[in-house]
């Protein structure tokens, strides 16, 4: 059975800190890994990673995939209170017909 595990479960930091969120997976026939941010509403798409070792960056957020070790990290630098959310990792299988979500990491950024 496909499995996606995120760590830590929750994290409390102060504004300006840098955080690293982890996502490991065991998926048959991997196609891509996706990161989402979920506040009090629907998840919003952040990144899609398909190739190993290529960093994707958007402002203070960046992510990279390691297909050999089967994990991805999401980095947030200079955190702000608006970064407080649940960050979700999901893996899409090669056939594109199955998307498995991890349990999420709840990030709280204190002023």
């Amino acid at each position: 059975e496909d499995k996606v595990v995120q760590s830590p479960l929750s994290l409390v930091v102060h504004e300006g800190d840098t955080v690293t969120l982890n996502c490991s997976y065991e998926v048959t026939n991997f196609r891509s890994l996706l990161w989402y941010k979920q506040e009090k509403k629907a998840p919003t798409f952040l990144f899609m990673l398909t190739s190993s070792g290529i960093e994707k960056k958007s402002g203070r957020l960046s992510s990279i995939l390691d297909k050999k070790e089967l994990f991805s990290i999401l980095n947030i630098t200079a955190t702000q209170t608006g970064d407080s959310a649940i960050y979700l990792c999901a893996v899409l299988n090669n056939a594109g017909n199955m998307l498995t979500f991890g349990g999420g990491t709840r990030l709280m950024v204190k002023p």
Partner: protein
Amino acid sequence: GAGVSQSPSNKVTEKGKDVELRCDPISGHTALYWYRQRLGQGLEFLIYFQGNSAPDKSGLPSDRFSAERTGESVSTLTIQRTQQEDSAVYLCASRQGAGLGTQYFGPGTRLLVL
């Protein structure tokens, strides 16, 4: 059928027209999700149903988008007054229980707005 099915598989429409996309989830799956995928981009979450209710509609891009589900089965996604930026593949997924977990996708509807 055994999997999630969607219809039509392709739809070409003129700007300003309304379109209706249909999703038949796996039988017995209580949760149903709609996503949009633009060319070369990731899956954008639009809306999900638990049973016939949609607890959260905040992912819908604008008030031109609406969705409903009946009989805890078929769902329709309606886009009114289509715009060119609505062109994308619209994917439906279903899941047996609540939460995000593992979702099973249909083949998608490729929408092109001219």
